[in-house]
């Protein structure tokens, strides 16, 4: 089976909150110096999901990533985890696209790759948290979509997907090919190990520009964007510390439980 995984490179979410800076005028995040960007958290889990399917059913994994700068690093990371091939989608025309524009570019690249049984995305990106690209991309590709998967099985040419709900999960079946967005509940991604780490570090990743994938300039025109960012701010962080006490450890625990219930 051939799985295509769409991944994104984001600002490292592990940097100390105090170091997070934005440019409110330009409505942009200012990347802190000396901190390499990383693969978006849920996208990495999508790669993990693809690897688990490959472990079981063999096949091939192709990863694509659209973005500026050293985005090839996240492709290499996915290859180190178990992906076979990867392509970087990089063009000045791709910068600052909204979810529709992004899905359009990814769609064009996926159509160029062709011959896939499954497309995977993270449920949303760790930077903008829009959570839209997956569904729009499925629409563009004309395939079914299941969001927030915590488990994917391939059974008899069909995909059986466990989908996270607020109070549990549901199991859905989707045909191949379909698009599935992957949730954190799928579990920790594997540590890239063994030889793959070396293979990935030496791999040349091809870069596709707009014309390589046949993207129409009109579709990339910012004037046609469906989304406009009107303001950007860093939420104020407030830390309050309170010691919950009680005469016995049991009583302290009761008091803590009561406090937590109130907060929820």
């Amino acid at each position, binding site marked *: 089976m051939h799985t295509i995984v769409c991944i994104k490179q984001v600002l*490292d979410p*592990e*940097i*100390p909150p105090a*170091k997070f800076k934005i440019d409110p005028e330009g409505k942009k995040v200012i990347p*802190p*110096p*000396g*901190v*390499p960007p*990383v*693969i978006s958290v849920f996208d990495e889990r999508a790669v993990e999901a693809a690897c688990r399917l490959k472990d079981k059913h063999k096949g091939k994994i192709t990863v694509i990533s659209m973005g500026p700068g050293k985005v090839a690093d996240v492709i290499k*990371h996915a290859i*180190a985890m178990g992906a076979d091939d990867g392509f970087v989608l990089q063009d000045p025309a791709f910068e600052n696209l909204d979810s529709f524009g992004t899905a359009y570019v990814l769609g064009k690249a996926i159509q160029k790759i062709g011959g896939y049984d499954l497309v995977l995305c993270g449920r949303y990106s760790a930077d903008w948290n829009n959570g839209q690209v997956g569904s729009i991309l499925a629409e563009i590709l004309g395939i079914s979509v299941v969001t927030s998967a915590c488990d994917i099985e391939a059974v008899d040419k069909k995909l059986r997907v466990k989908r996270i709900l607020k109070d549990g999960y549901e199991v859905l079946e989707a045909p191949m090919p379909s698009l599935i967005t992957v949730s954190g509940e799928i579990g*920790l991604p*594997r*540590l*890239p*190990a*063994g*030889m*793959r*780490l*070396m293979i990935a*570090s030496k791999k040349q990743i091809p870069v596709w520009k707009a014309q390589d994938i046949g993207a129409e300039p009109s579709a990339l025109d910012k004037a046609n964007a469906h989304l406009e960012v009107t303001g950007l701010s860093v939420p104020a962080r407030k830390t309050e510390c309170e010691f919950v006490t009680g005469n016995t450890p049991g009583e302290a625990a009761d008091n803590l439980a009561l406090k937590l219930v109130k907060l929820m």
Partner: protein
Amino acid sequence: MECLKEVIVSPVSATYWGIPGYVIFWVLFAVAFGLFAQRFYLLYRLMRLGKQENRFDRISERIKAMLVEVVPQWCTLKTVTRKDLAGLAHALLFWSFSLFFISYIIFIGLAGGFGLSPLIERTPFETVYFSILDIAALLVTLILIVAAIRRYVIRPPRLEPTAEAGIILVMVFSLMALHVIGVGFDHASRGVHTSWPPLGAALAGFLNQTGLSQTTLEATSRGVWWLHYLVILSFMVYIPHSKHLHILASLVNAFFKPLGQKVVLEPIPLEALEAPEGEATFGASKILDFTWKDLLDLYACAECGRCHIHCPAQLTGKTLSPREVIHHLKEHLLETGPKLLAPQAEPSSESQVDMPAKTMIGDVVTEEEIWACTTCGACQEVCPVNIEHIRKIIDLRRNLVLSQSKMPESAQVMLRNMQQRGHPWAGVQSMRLRGDWTSGLELKILAEGDNAHTLFWVGCTGALVERNVNATLSMTRVLKAAGVEFGVLGESETCCGDPARRAGYEFQFQMMAEQNIEIFKGFNIKEILTACPHCYNTIKHEYPKYGGDFKVVHYTELIADLIRQGKLKLPNELNSRLTYHDPCYLGRYNSVYHEPRRILQAIPNAKLEEMERSRDTGFCCGGGGGLMWIEEQPGTTKISQMRIEDVLKTGVETVVTACPYCLQMFEDAIEHKGVKESLKARDLVEIVDEAMKSS
């Protein structure tokens, strides 16, 4: 009497039931030697099944190192403390038994077996030699009694009261007794009346008074001689079947010990890299994934348990015991051995060999044990027979991490950080950004095209963690005050790779090493000054294998030197009682013990108190081997807290160290113990900075 003396012949030259004694002598010898050689050959073939490793370099140096260690018994004498004199006892036993061993060759082999008794026996040489042996026999008997009492009555934790130990004690005692009894009966039956050798002569005197008949005396004398011979042969046969194999194996192990650097980790061999994907195994998952030297280590173990009582993991209640790891691996090798040798007999493919039911990782050595090791090196330092425990643990980790992807979650988080972020500290509350510490300082931050002779390599902890940045700032002030010219990498510095390597993530280490070496070469760096002993050890000893040969200096060495040259003055009085904790990777790994103490002694009124466990027996802080980030295995207490107990016993106000990991661990343990008011943890360079400041 005179004529009788002529009649008496050596027991070997007599005839027994019509069979000449010589025949019996050599048949017995052949049987015993055959059994010995058979076992020995099996052990040798098993060892040869291990992976290749070259330890045949610098032969003359190796011979010298071996002799220097074994003959004067430095191997065990180095472990002698006021509380544990066993090493001294071993040395005496070794020398005494060596005398006995030589006597067996001369007086039994040459005199008996080769019929040279007329040349050897009843000579002044014999009298002198036997007199010395009497003293040796008394000494050995005394030691055996003490050893038996220790094993079966006192039972210190390092010794297991095994049956094997008992058999050997009885056997050695029999050898001593039979020697003296033999001399006694020999003298009595020949009617020799001398007072030398004292024990034998005294016994002979006693026997003469008992009124035993000449025939009885002669017959008993012969009987004792043959019994003595039989016990010697049984001893030879028993040696390779027991832990006393160490008598032979430890000698060989001393020859093959690592020269120079004490703890050597080998890179993953190239053939493993070239194997097709999915078929390659990394590290050790089966006993034969170890090298032949690792297997030789198993034979060399005498189960003395010194590693057991020095291991910080064991002492804090973890399941890991270096002694048990080695012992279990040895048992596993011997158990699976015959099966492992079988495929050589029939040329069937290796996959058809049914694998032993026990898995090495899990059944023989547990994952819990594997992840409890801090790689502090206490086990190897104290081991009298040069066993290399640490690289076995690392090989097991390599397999878990690289081939099985099985590791504690905290290890995985750390290693992911190493891989994605280039350092192990992500997610820590007080974390800084790389290069932040340089702001506001006038430093030469190396950029493309720059050249620098000396690089101050800060290390991840000193650059990223708030508490340790303080020491880094002190370091720059000290360097500037002493007029040392240096460059720093600022935000482009990454990790040296040590935590990845110790956690078994070898490829990540290798990539980091290669990348760093390229950076160093790019700036034409000749000398690297490190603040962290882990970086120090890695760059100094491990980078050369990847083509990076630089002069590497730890700051304690540099500062001690600057003080000696008068380039650094420390006028300010400290007026404080302090103790110095030896970081494992500076002390045990690199023998830097004096420099930090010399620095402290140069500070006016710094009152240095030593902890009981210091220098080469210094106790780990708990942070090495990746355990700074990997959660400590369950035990009775944390290693860092046990070390702080050591500090508290000295009653000092400050514990000084020269390693960012130790500093972190101590800050944590002091907080946990609630002794923040009375005890401070400081980096040595912070103390130097204070002593130097002009106020």
